[in-house]
């Protein structure tokens, strides 16, 4: 849900021309002049396939990698000048868990609180409230290593909220979670946004997850290719999308035949999947004719036929000229060995 325009005047996080070049690996450009701002109370997604630069962006925002190009301003504090102050204002959920598995749930939270200068009754109350909110109260004395993956992720999020951050940054929070746990995590995040006015920025390579964000920054090969609401992005891809699945992994062999017979340009999306983008002006009758035509001609070979509104996958393909999941990066790692000043 888009926010009221009054909030737009007061971004909680703004990035201007942020760039990053790997010092090793032949000086590859990981991020190139990326600018955006995140408004208070919004769920902001950074979408991109592996190697798009989103993890590098996350590392820069989380201050683990020093900012060398561009400017970042968080809750009124600039990187790298006021970085110590800025660190007080965001909570971070890393992709690889940052919990101590030998410690209990409550111990992890209190250790984290101490690192942010919290102590005593204030910290205890805060921890109690968070455990309650995340339905972890009954597990507070359990060692983290005994919890399931979904529960550990919940503890992770609870931990990052102990210092009451204004902005929560999450790096691919759903990675490794099953669909139920993923949905549950999202319910918690939405509830937090509602009750505490928390602003959330997350990187993701799940397209369905990206649809749940208020706004999306789409990255490809280190560049910003789009920034808008998921709805607006999808409107940019006109018309409807027809997906055809074949019974045998030879979808490629249909491309030329379909192109010739139906005057469309099918795009290969996998060994068994073809995609046809129908122009916006296509009438329902024309759609019906197309479906009938395809069925008449190829029924024995067709495993599935789906007519749907464009997905973010189509948006990505349109924006970059490549399929989202075909972008296999030779180099998806983020900066790690950099010298820090």
């Amino acid at each position, binding site marked *: 849900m888009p926010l009221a325009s009054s909030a737009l005047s007061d971004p909680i996080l703004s990035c201007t021309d942020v760039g990053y070049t790997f010092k090793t690996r032949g000086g590859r450009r990981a991020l190139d002049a990326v600018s955006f701002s995140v408004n208070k109370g919004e769920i902001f997604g950074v979408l991109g396939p592996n190697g798009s630069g989103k993890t590098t962006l996350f590392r820069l925002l989380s201050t683990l990698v020093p900012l060398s190009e561009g400017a970042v301003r968080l809750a009124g504090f600039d990187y790298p000048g006021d970085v110590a102050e800025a660190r007080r204002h965001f909570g971070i959920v890393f992709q690889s868990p940052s919990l*101590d598995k030998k410690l209990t749930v409550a111990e992890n939270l209190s250790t984290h609180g101490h*690192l942010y200068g919290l102590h005593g009754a204030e910290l205890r109350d805060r921890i109690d409230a968070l455990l309650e909110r995340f339905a972890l109260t009954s597990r507070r004395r359990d060692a983290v290593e005994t919890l399931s993956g979904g529960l550990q992720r919940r503890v992770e999020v609870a931990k990052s909220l102990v210092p009451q951050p204004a902005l929560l940054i999450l790096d691919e929070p759903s990675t490794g979670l099953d669909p139920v746990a993923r949905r549950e995590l999202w319910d918690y995040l939405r509830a937090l946004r509602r009750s505490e006015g928390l602003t959330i920025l997350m990187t993701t390579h799940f397209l369905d997850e990206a649809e749940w964000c208020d706004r999306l920054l789409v990255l490809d090969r280190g560049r910003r290719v789009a920034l808008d609401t998921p709805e607006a992005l999808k409107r940019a891809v006109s018309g409807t999308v027809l997906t055809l699945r074949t019974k045998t992994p030879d979808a490629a062999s249909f491309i030329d035949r379909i192109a010739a017979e139906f005057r469309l340009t099918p795009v290969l999306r996998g060994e068994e999947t073809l995609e046809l983008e129908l122009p916006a002006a296509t009438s329902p009758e024309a759609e019906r004719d197309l479906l009938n035509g395809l069925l008449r001609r190829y029924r024995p070979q067709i495993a599935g036929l789906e007519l749907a509104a464009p997905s973010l996958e189509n948006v990505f393909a349109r924006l970059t000229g490549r399929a989202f999941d075909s972008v296999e990066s030779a180099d998806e790692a983020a900066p790690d*060995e950099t010298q820090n*000043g």
Partner: protein
Amino acid sequence: MFTLTHPFLLAVGTLTRREIVRFLRQRNRVVGALATPLAFWFMIGSGVGSSFGSGTGAGKATDATAYLHYFFPGTLLLIILFTAIFSTISIIEDRREGFLQGVLAAPIPRAAFVLAKLLGGTLLAFGQCLLIYLIALNFGLPFSIPACFLFTGTVFVLGLSLTALGYLIAWPLDSTQGFHAIMNLFLMPMWFLSGALFPLAGSARWLQYLGQANPLTYGLALIRQALEPGLALPANCPPALLSGGVTLGFAALLLWAAIEITNRLSVRNP
């Protein structure tokens, strides 16, 4: 529980506590840290001592007990070394498990993390040595307050040095295998060449030089002196003042280097 509410002390306190809690929750570490040196002491001490054949056992003491006596300070040094190694290996784990990321992104100076790591290892080593010291007192080790002060002070400073040394080795590494290689190549020889196993005085000239250049030689000399009746300086030991100076200087240098290396390098991720 914490009355130390200054953010820096709070951070050091909580991270030190974590080190100790982690240690106590891993029973194999507790057993390994205590049993291994004791086993070393008895096996090497009894075995090597009885095969020396040229001991100077006075009265009814046999050669074997004389060597056990000689080897006891070396055992304590070994305990400190083992604990230091185990506690600093956990840096590599912290990085792999990701705990370190959360600490480094927190609004505390990195020195707090370093100090906590070193203090954690030091306190563990200190506790173990104290325990064994108490056992030894029970078995007739002469007690005096100055000797106790010298002993505890030396053990603490040595613990700090060795955890800092382990930290310096572990910080740039990304695998525990790498750490073991360096440990065998570097830390264990340091222990051998400190005079822990055999007096360096009677050995080859080059070994003596290496021993003199080894800072642990001086720490061990202090422990040895603290365990002698009336703080007598054992034969072939460097003077106490020199030993104290080298031990303190070594600790200060390594502590500084550990903080420096942590401030320079950013975190490495899996």
